[in-house]
């Protein structure tokens, strides 16, 4: 549990900047959700047996969770690691780089989970959720957070400068968001593109959360959870490998 002191450090800083942090993390997805959901939703018939607003809310919950996990693990993580040299200072204590990577991943996932949970609260308040079963989206949101935090941290420990992240954002995250069923059903994509989406974590997050919003249990829970857990676990292992190389070589 040595990683928990790193988690706590980040939490204490977050608490200080609570208002700004919550605003930036939530305002964006909520504006998108309400703007696109209501605006575009008025033009669209129901999708897969639900209103477009419901459909898009489930997608936004996952994409916002992904965004928060990625931003926190990459930009904030890089600032702590490279800019402020906070990691260097922590390593003087009886802490090893593996503990820091673990603390950062769990922290970014926690913050991401909060984004997802807040969107879920909005979904509930607006009466978009069909049944209390929607609460099951909470653990899945944490899993989505873990998967993207781990992958984000790989980028962080490999990064030489800030520009490095824009490759990942532009070439991976943006197209992934387009094909993972956030804005429209992924099933209408050409088969090879759908296969790519299914190999990536966001699609599985959406597949888990969307049925819950309309009051159904998701199908193939095992598959979706396994993919997310695999991204989290393998990503974590890779992040540790490169973090050790960066710090103790």
């Amino acid at each position, binding site marked *: 549990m*040595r990683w928990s*002191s*790193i988690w*706590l*450090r980040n939490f*204490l*800083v977050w608490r*200080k900047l609570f208002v700004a942090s919550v605003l930036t993390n939530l305002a964006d997805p909520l504006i998108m959700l309400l703007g696109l959901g209501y605006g575009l939703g008025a033009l669209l018939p129901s999708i897969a047996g639900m209103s477009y607003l419901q459909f898009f809310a489930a997608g936004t919950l996952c994409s916002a969770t992904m965004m928060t996990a990625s931003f926190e693990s990459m930009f904030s993580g890089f600032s702590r690691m490279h800019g*402020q*040299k*906070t990691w*260097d*200072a*922590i*390593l*003087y*204590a*009886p*802490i*090893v780089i593996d503990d820091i990577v673990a603390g950062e991943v769990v922290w970014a996932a926690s913050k991401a989970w909060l984004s997802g949970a807040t969107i879920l609260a909005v979904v509930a308040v607006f009466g978009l959720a069909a049944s209390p079963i929607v609460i099951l989206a909470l653990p899945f949101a944490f899993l989505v957070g873990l998967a993207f935090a781990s992958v984000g941290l790989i980028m962080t420990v490999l990064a030489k400068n800030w520009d490095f992240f824009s490759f990942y954002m532009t070439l991976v995250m943006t197209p992934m968001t387009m094909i993972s069923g956030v804005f429209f059903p992924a099933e209408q994509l050409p088969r090879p593109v759908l296969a790519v989406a299914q190999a990536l974590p966001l699609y599985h997050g959406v597949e888990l959360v969307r049925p819950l919003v309309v009051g159904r249990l998701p199908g193939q829970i095992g598959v979706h959870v396994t993919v997310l857990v695999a991204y989290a676990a393998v990503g974590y292992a890779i992040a540790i490998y490169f973090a050790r190389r960066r*710090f*103790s*070589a």
Partner: protein
Amino acid sequence: MIVLRARALRKRYGELEVVSGLDLDVQAGECFGLLGPNGAGKTTTLRLCLGLTDPDGGDIELLGEPVPSRAREARARVGVVPQFDNLDPDFTVAENLQVFARYFSLGSIDTKLPQLLEFAGLAGREDARITALSGGMKRRLTLARALINDPRLLVLDEPTTGLDPQARHLIWERLRRLTQEGKTLVLTTHFMEEAERLCHRVAIMDHGRLIAIGSPRDLIAQHTEPHVVEVHGNGVDAWLSRARGVAPRVERVGDTVFAYASEVAPVLATLEGRRELSYLHRPASLEDVFLKLTGRDLRD
């Protein structure tokens, strides 16, 4: 008792061997100085000894623990002051200490805090933001942070680089206080004056090896003549050849001639009546030893 022992230590970065077969023993209770020009391998040596960098060869024992395999356990009883301040800018002075204590799995530091703040000369400043502190205050807070776990060994990498004389003297006073309390100190420095004032023993390092080790006084006695006369001005060339006759070692650096001698009277006699020359007679220092052993070429 040996607090830190290194044997045949090696570290290579690409083509360059930064530490090449270094042996080191630091005794409990001493202040040990590691001196060397830029790029001599001082910081890398410290990082290796702390288990922060993996060596390519050799053995390290820190407070009885093998490093790097049990470096984590050893570091629980070590304090580190890095070359560049890495205080947490998101926290206040007191929060920096409290957050750092948690990395050592220490609980509340409320009882220790007043004492640490007093030591750092930051009493009454516990709620100050890091950005509001001067360079000297940041250094002292970094020093207080390194004492959070009441370490037996304190490792300091250039503790006074970039500080003004007032701030430097205050750090020296604090470091002497720590030595008097029985703590072991290992520090690197570029300032020979600092090493002479603080260190019981110093090691001079160059190209990844120790080239001399001993007390500052012994090193001066062993490696250089006790008197130095520095001369410059028009006609210094003419004087240089006369100086060679009376001083065993004479060096010219730019427009200044350094004459090193055991007997200073004959050297000063050659300067009498030469009003065109300015000169300074001083006792030999660790800096003279350092320059003799590592050369006067720039290292950058």
